[in-house]
């Protein structure tokens, strides 16, 4: 379809009134179409009640039922509660399917060249976006639940067997006067304890973990890259890998390479100073 010219006057007026550019453009185009129709002597806009009734009567007379002229009267008679009679409904279906045998489509003047009519312009945001894309899906039962159940059994078995053979650590009664050397935090805090060797406790124990957690939580908002494909997010993957490796190195160093006085040791020379 050829592009419709905008009515510049209408457009300028709408823009001046603060209407959005897109809406103004659409309304200006609609104004042009209306002006053309008026120039061609066609009817525009909402029709009067009289005119609508006439149209309806004409429509019913044309294809109101199967029985020829006598049906016209029954067809025009208003059905109770405003419903269509079965004949009318059949006729409408036929009309909408284009089986009107030359009769005009509903709402389109019979002498019109056009087969479509502009009903309304709706901004895309006003339409509910139903993204019901066809996806490759399977039933949760049995496919997912069986996988989950097997994973659960495997993890349960690993836990049970290792708990049978490995006893959890249990040392002497707590004694506030006897500091073990080295004293270590639980393993997941040993990275922080390692940092204590390099920074002031406020930095190592509060500032760095605080900022770390904040950045971690905010990642979802800082990362504006919409793609989840690995090839499109090389920087994000690299940054995460860098921090994960860094953190792992600190935890391993604090766990296995720190001995008495939290000084550096080689575990294969001086032995392990690590308890879970």
């Amino acid at each position: 379809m050829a592009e419709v010219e905008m009515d510049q006057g209408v457009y300028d007026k709408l823009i001046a009134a603060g209407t959005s550019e897109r809406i103004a453009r659409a309304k200006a185009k609609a104004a042009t179409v209306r002006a053309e129709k008026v120039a061609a002597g066609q009817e525009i806009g909402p029709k009067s009640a009289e005119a609508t009734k006439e149209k309806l009567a004409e429509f019913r007379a044309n294809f109101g039922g199967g029985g020829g002229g006598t049906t016209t009267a029954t067809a025009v008679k208003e059905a109770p509660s405003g419903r269509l009679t079965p004949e009318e409904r059949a006729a409408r279906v036929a009309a909408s399917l284009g089986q009107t045998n030359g009769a005009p489509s509903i709402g389109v003047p019979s002498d019109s060249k056009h087969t479509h009519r502009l009903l309304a312009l709706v901004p895309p945001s006003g339409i509910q976006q139903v993204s019901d894309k066809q996806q490759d899906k399977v039933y949760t039962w049995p496919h997912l639940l069986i996988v989950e159940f097997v994973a659960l059994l495997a993890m349960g078995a690993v836990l049970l067997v290792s708990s049978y053979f490995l006893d959890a650590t249990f040392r002497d009664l707590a004694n506030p006067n006897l500091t073990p050397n080295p004293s270590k935090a639980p393993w997941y805090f040993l990275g922080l304890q390692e940092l204590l060797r390099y920074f002031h406790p406020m930095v190592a124990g509060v500032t760095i973990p605080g900022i770390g957690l904040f950045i971690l939580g905010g990642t979802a908002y800082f990362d504006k890259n919409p793609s989840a494909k690995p090839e499109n997010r090389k920087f994000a993957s690299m940054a995460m890998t860098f921090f994960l490796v860094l953190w792992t190195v600190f935890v391993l160093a604090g766990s296995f390479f720190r001995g008495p006085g939290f000084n550096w040791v080689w575990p294969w020379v001086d032995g392990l100073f690590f308890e879970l």
Partner: protein
Amino acid sequence: MPSLPSWSDVQKNVQDNVIWKSIFRPGSIYRKGYRDTSRDRALAAMNNVLYHLHPVKVKRHGLKLTYTYCLGGLSFFLFVVLTITGIFLMFFYTPAAGAGTELAYQDMRNIQASVNFGLLVRNMHRWGAHLMVFTVFLHMARVFYHGAYKPPREFNWVVGVILLTLTLLLSFTGYLLPWDQLAVWAVTVGTEMMGYTPVFGRQVQFVLLGGAVIGPNTLLRWYVLHVLFVPFVTVIFLAVHFWRIRKDGGISGPL
């Protein structure tokens, strides 16, 4: 003598029973039986409490073991195992310490030496806790590398980070309870760092320890945190976490 009712009669009577019908919803496989049809597969998911966690259908790619490695599910499974073993241990444990009344330590000894399955359950609780920290951590890494925190899942990532922190807190508060040298000194090291919090450092440490140094008050405080407070908060966040997974369109991807 009247003949015994046949098996199918018994089954019919039980399944037509008012109580049975009140327990199993219409369409439940325990009402009409299960045939392996699409309809019954859907009903099996729908008439199940797991419907809170899973929809009737899931994306096929999500089933691939190498996509999720089941890490989130296993973390939750470990949380459940830790709850069960933890409740068991609570029956035999008193959070009391102090000169002459080292009940906590004595109870730990008894659990390991005298209680049936006590040592095994304690071991499972300990190793399970370490394992859970590990799986939660790996789960976070997996989600990051799949970009699964991107819209619309940003908020659920934040909930996940909170859950990671809560997992660490759960583990750390439990670390003190055996009241042995390892427990007390590991917690001493950990809480000393919190004392360096700007402005409120001393106060934070005081509230956490229930005093200036680790003592009986700390044990009671951390016990309550460990068995009630932190699990309570964690369950709330878990509920939000799982709900958002479904609301945000199930598992992320495919890549």
